[in-house]
């Protein structure tokens, strides 16, 4: 059986599934329930500086995007960092770590962007015996208006500066949590690395308004008729997170920097995808907030069974295996030709492939053949775009079949067996001339 145990920055946990810093990790009661359910670690809900704690709104904090059966596809929140006194959190963290020594316990921290503030809190956090710290540079709402959270995360120089302070004032591993509300995720990642971070974690939530109430014209969640942008998370954000993880994993400057993957992880498969893109572990929030802590049991069994089926003994065996396959568009093989092929036995004749292709693509699928409703690919027109596969409601009914030889009926050009990309393409004015 596969060994799911995780060693991230020397922090050991029985599995790579951590709960992200968020409402589920706000106090000992929840965290202990999570550990009992099987979570490998938690990142405690973000601690603020000493003094009167932050206050939260007393109206709705969450908004959601639902599927037709009320499946929660995306969640947004306007909750701030912990609103409990610092000493209470630190005391509970100490107790929990003592009680659960085999689980990872990370302290998430957000204090003002001043050296003294970080210098003051770090020793106190260290005293709890926790395994590391995560710098919350991502929270996009509320705290950012006060110069913290995403306000730091959006300025690479600040990131580097704060990370440097943290490395200076604590021996604990430092994980820098990045905001996706930025144009190029590689910049803050590089800054964190320059500052000496041990790892980055991403993504934090995305600036969002989930909906507008058309009766009151107030954004949701609405606090007395008004709303503010909140942080978007859940299954909907996973593709954005995967890309940002991949960008960091393959960037020349940050390659090899440990990554804790976050963003819409709901099942073992999502987790495996993040790990395949280089993540050393993953953090989960929305899935737990939707279904409770028990979801980790499916993630553990699913990942383990999949690893067994592929012969992977440990997380390290497949970690990063997808990274080399992520490349720039210019390096994609332009000689690779596929044609859609419809399995007529599986086709239920809904016609979605036809109308999608006819109205919005390349007019490459019939709707009628010899007076009979029939959907068939016209190879002379098919550019292999895959839209029909995506809109087809039947799994495996339409396949993209590579052309390995012969003549492409669309271009009338012979299929080239060799790899060739844009950099050498004759239509590219910048094309590199092949060596004579």
């Amino acid at each position, binding site marked *: 059986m596969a060994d799911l145990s995780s060693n991230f920055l020397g922090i050991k946990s029985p599995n790579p599934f951590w709960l992200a810093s968020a409402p589920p990790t706000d106090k000992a009661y929840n965290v202990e329930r999570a550990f009992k359910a099987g979570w490998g670690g938690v990142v405690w809900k973000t601690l603020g500086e000493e003094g009167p704690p932050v206050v939260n709104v007393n109206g709705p904090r969450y908004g959601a995007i639902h599927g037709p*059966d009320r499946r929660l596809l995306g969640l947004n929140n306007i909750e701030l960092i912990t609103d409990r006194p610092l000493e209470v959190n630190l005391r509970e963290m100490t107790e929990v770590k003592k009680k659960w020594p085999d689980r990872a316990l990370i302290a998430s921290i957000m204090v003002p962007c001043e050296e003294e503030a970080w210098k003051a809190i770090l020793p106190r956090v260290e005293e709890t015996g926790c395994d590391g710290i995560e710098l919350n540079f991502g929270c996009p709402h509320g705290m950012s208006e006060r110069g913290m959270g995403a306000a730091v995360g959006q300025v690479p120089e600040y990131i580097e500066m704060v990370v440097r302070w943290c490395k200076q004032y604590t021996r604990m591993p430092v994980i820098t949590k990045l905001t996706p509300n930025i144009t190029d995720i590689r910049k803050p990642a590089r800054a964190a690395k320059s500052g000496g971070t041990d790892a980055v974690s991403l993504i934090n939530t995305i600036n969002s308004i989930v909906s507008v109430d058309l009766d009151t014209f107030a954004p949701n969640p609405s606090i007395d008729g008004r709303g503010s942008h909140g942080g978007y998370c859940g299954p909907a954000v996973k593709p954005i997170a995967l890309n940002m993880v991949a960008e960091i994993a393959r960037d020349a400057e940050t390659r090899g920097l440990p990554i804790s993957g976050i963003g819409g992880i709901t099942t073992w498969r999502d987790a495996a995808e993040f790990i395949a893109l280089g993540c050393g572990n993953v953090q989960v929030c929305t899935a737990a907030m939707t279904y409770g802590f028990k979801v980790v049991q499916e993630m553990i069994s699913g990942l383990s069974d999949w690893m067994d089926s592929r012969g992977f003994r440990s997380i390290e065996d497949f970690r990063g295996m997808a990274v080399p396959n992520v490349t720039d568009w210019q390096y994609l093989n332009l000689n690779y030709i596929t044609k859609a092929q419809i399995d007529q036995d599986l086709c239920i004749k809904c*016609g*979605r492939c036809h109308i999608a292709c006819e109205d919005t693509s390349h007019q490459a699928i019939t709707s009628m053949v010899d007076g009979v409703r029939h959907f068939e690919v016209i190879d002379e027109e098919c550019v292999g775009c895959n839209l029909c596969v995506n809109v087809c409601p039947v799994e495996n009914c339409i396949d993209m079949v590579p052309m390995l030889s012969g003549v492409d009926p669309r271009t009338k050009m012979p299929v080239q067996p060799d790899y060739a990309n844009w950099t050498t393409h004759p239509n590219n004015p910048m094309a590199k001339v092949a060596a004579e």
Partner: protein
Amino acid sequence: MGSMDSGIRDVRAGRLTSSDYTDVFSDLHPPLSRHEAFVESDRCYFCYDAPCMNACPTGIDIPLFIREIAADNPTGSAKTILSENILGGMCARVCPTETLCEQACVREAAEGKPVKIGLLQRYATDYLMENGQHPFTRAAPTGKSVAVVGAGPAGLSAAHRLAMYGHDVTIFEARPKAGGLNEYGIAAYKSVDDFAQKELDFILEIGGITIQNDKALGRDISLDALRAGFDAVFLGLGLPGVNELGLDGEDAAGCIDAVDYISVLRQSNDLSQIAVGRDVVVIGGGMTAIDVAVQTKLLGAENVIIAYRRGPESMNASEFEQELALKNGVIIRHWLQPRALTRNERGEVCGITLDYTIMNDGRLETSGESVTLASDQIFKAIGQMPAEKILSDAGMALSRGRISVDEEHRTSIPGIWAGGDCIAGGQDLTVAGVQDGKLAAESIHRALSMQPEKVSGFAEAVIAGNSEPASTSAQHTANPGHISG
């Protein structure tokens, strides 16, 4: 099963306890809740050139109305439905969707579970009828008048569309209430809460429609008078007669027209007053046979047997309807054909002898064996008959007793259109009648739009009951039929 031996028929009202009558005919398919409608509508694939739409006799844009439900616009959804089928509410309840749209649904092919199109249609139309206003506006009056004979689905459909175009419509209905089979014929569990009358009221909201009840063609009004008094006539007569078994004694007590019985049942305010036999035999294989069998069973009959002379695949009742009967404890016996009725000392029918039948070279024959079933009530449900005599007397071309019409639903008599069960080649379905009425109305409107003005006053004369207004022909030089070609 002692009734035949003793000859004493056990026919009683009030077989159920009084509380059981409250929900004995509860909704066959309870309506979808809002959430259920969202979930179900999400199952629709919004097919290209959707097969369901092509299977709908009225051509409702089903994918569009379902998408409108999914997008939380039930009002728009209902408008999409009603613009093609003004009786979309009733059709949502009574259409044999399992042989129409839902049979064609690609999810039926894919997984044997079609989108519940009928229930979604009901969700949208119920919503509009409960919350909205009549969604159509009547055009400015054209000054043209149209007589519609029969206030069933075909007649109401024609009337609504004609009224919408600004024509004045007068409906002549033989029965005391409008609605036709929707009001008198459909099984009680398919249309609860007086829906037929609610839908009628909804249709009439368009304005410009007058209904004259208790006015039967051939009894109170004549075709000639209608032709004379109106710019156009639409016949939606239905099938007023019932086919006979052709057996001695079928007029005696104990042998009942299923259609009449259902009509009495539907009009009853107190089901505990409806007499039901202990042993019931239904002769026939169509929807009416199922309807009467299930309803008598629900009203407390102990043994209900449907006897049908051919196999299950030949039954006009859909597979779903047959299963509905079986589910309710009705026994369906195939390959049995009535031979003779058994009568008791009082002359009442108390049993029936049926011959076993076999198929021999495509011909139905009796096998020589027979069976006798005891019965307290025998229901005849072997089809209905057109009003053949009135029509043939008027010189109208008929086909096997039903009115021959062209693709525009014009009869052989200029100025007269027809639709619904009374025309030849129809499907005998509510939804088909609605389509007939709609198509005929379009044709009438085209004809009337080109017609010169006509002398007024004759419509009023006919409505007033003067079926032979004076000097009719002399004043009517512009019969609509003359321009219909």
